[in-house]
């Protein structure tokens, strides 16, 4: 069996025992990339020579020594391009610094290996909105891998990466993890520094691990979590040992099933797989409790006001002046701004900038933005109330398995509504994870993965990972 199929924890044992070298792992990945990446399109770029050079000098005494990690292309890696899946940056942005997380990965001995495709500026649920290439689901090449971290998910699922980093603003780690059959962890807001992550919606974004096992998610989170003085939203709290409680099981824990997440619109086979996971956790000793999160139905409207509002502000820095796309022969400065942004941004980004600008504009600010922030409080309180009665919450990740590429091309509202299961945890700042829960047969005979979503209170990653480990197939 190729080393490319292995987990971080298995490879680390072999590396420490000197049974393999980091270069062996790179060679194995190079072979699978050569065989499969052209069809799947997970990577925007890899640099195998540089990876081998890093592998040759990797410090195997470090926690991730010799382990290659793929990076979503909205996270700065010193000296490498950072395109965010956008034409705006593809022509002219090389990261002049490391993100906090990429610095920590280097400190942990990891090999930074390849940049993965994504929806432009992380806006989307399909990786269809990348301006640079299409990424396909490794389980069915006619289908989406999910988004916006679809490149990272597809790379891990197809053994083109041992593990990867993604970013999650409204489900962008968990949803592609679910569609591709891997583990995807969105840490609590403030657990991981956002320094060096190109901002989409600053009050929602978090960087997190995408891995082949729950244990690997714990190992990777261990490496990237912790305070950072360069991010005022990163909490100054110690990082627990995330592997310490991993195998303690769920006996005696109370797990909540919110009735609002199992209503109409959930694919019956998705519901069946999630319910089977719930039954297995119950058999393992957990008490299953029905709960209510009454404002769930308002999560989509709330998110799609707040996120575009923050995006319209964050993306105002893309003005054609300091980096990226600049329109030729501008008549004046305003013409430069408007044409550079028109030329550089794709349709989804423009749509969200306009929506965000509108809801922040004078006369509409209170009607939309302030009201959405108040509803956000109600959604947060729903979770706070629920966690007074249960240790964690179990839900589907997405209402249906991966759809066909291009299916919702002209219907963004339909696409946005498919995010219903993942938006609430971001609005409330919770930690959340997607764990494989089985597969569903498609009409063309392929088997499409389905994920179980587990939610835990803010900063309760140890609880989250413990439940996830017990739920792991």
């Amino acid at each position, binding site marked *: 069996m190729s080393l490319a199929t292995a987990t971080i924890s298995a490879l680390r044992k072999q590396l420490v025992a000197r049974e393999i070298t980091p270069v062996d792992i790179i060679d194995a990945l190079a072979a699978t990339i050569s065989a499969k990446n052209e069809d799947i399109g997970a990577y925007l770029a890899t640099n195998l020579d540089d990876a081998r050079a890093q592998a040759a000098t990797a410090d195997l005494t470090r926690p991730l020594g010799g382990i290659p990690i793929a990076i979503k292309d909205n996270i700065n890696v010193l000296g490498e391009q950072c395109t965010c899946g956008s034409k705006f940056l593809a022509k*002219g*942005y*090389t990261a*002049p*610094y490391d993100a906090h997380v990429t610095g920590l990965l280097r400190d942990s001995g990891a090999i930074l290996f390849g940049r993965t495709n994504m929806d432009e500026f992380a806006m989307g649920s399909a990786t269809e909105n990348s301006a640079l290439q299409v990424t396909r689901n490794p389980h069915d090449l006619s289908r989406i891998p999910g988004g916006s971290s679809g490149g990272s998910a597809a790379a891990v699922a197809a053994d083109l990466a041992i593990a990867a980093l993604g970013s999650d603003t409204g489900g962008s780690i968990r949803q592609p993890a679910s569609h591709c059959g891997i583990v995807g962890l969105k840490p609590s*807001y*403030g657990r991981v520094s956002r320094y060096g992550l190109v901002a989409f919606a600053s*009050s929602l974004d978090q960087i997190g691990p995408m891995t082949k096992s729950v244990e690997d998610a714990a190992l990777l989170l261990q490496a990237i979590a912790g305070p950072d*003085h*360069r*991010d*005022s*939203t990163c*909490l*100054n709290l110690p990082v627990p040992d995330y592997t310490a409680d991993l195998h303690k099981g769920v006996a005696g824990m109370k797990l909540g099933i919110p009735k609002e997440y199992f209503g109409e619109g959930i694919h019956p086979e998705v519901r069946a797989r999630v319910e089977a996971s719930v039954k297995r956790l119950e058999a393992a000793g957990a008490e299953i409790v029905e709960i209510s999160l009454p404002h769930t139905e*308002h999560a989509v*409207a*709330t998110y799609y006001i707040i996120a575009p509002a923050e995006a319209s502000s964050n993306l105002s820095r893309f*003005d054609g*002046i*300091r*980096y*990226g*796309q*600049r329109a030729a022969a*501008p008549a*004046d*400065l*305003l*013409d*430069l701004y*408007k*044409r550079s*942004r*028109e030329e550089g*941004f794709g*349709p989804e980004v*423009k*749509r969200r*900038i*306009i929506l*965000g*600008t*509108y809801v922040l*504009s004078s006369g509409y600010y209170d009607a*939309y933005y*302030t*009201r*959405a*922030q*108040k*509803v*956000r*409080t*109600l959604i947060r309180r729903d979770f706070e109330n629920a966690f007074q009665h249960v240790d964690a919450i179990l839900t589907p990740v997405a209402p249906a398995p991966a759809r066909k590429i291009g299916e919702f091309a002209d219907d*963004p*509202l339909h696409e946005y509504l498919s995010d219903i299961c993942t938006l609430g945890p971001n*609005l409330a*700042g919770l930690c959340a994870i997607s764990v494989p829960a089985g597969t569903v047969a498609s009409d063309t005979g392929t088997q499409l993965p389905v994920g179980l979503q587990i939610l835990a209170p*803010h900063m309760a990653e140890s609880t989250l990972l413990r439940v996830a480990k017990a739920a792991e197939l």
Partner: protein
Amino acid sequence: MASEHIKVSHVAGLARLELTDAECAVFQTQLDAILGHAESLAALDVTGIEPTSYPAPVYDVMREDEPRPSIPPEAVLANAPDQAQGQIRVPKVIADA
């Protein structure tokens, strides 16, 4: 909530985006649908509810006021679409006298 439709071409101007007429027409329909969905929030009673800007506390982080290394200017200028004399060059913004 607002009852009138979004004026896409006007808002695009505020957002410093030059859209084509075709883009305006497509976005008009799509954004009307999205804002129509958002109207559902108007039915909620949010009297006395504090807005949530961030789901966790935000700290002001202060560092010592002392010199320290920064990103090299040449690394920053390397990303600029146009540069001259160690500076980023932009279109003229001051009219001739």
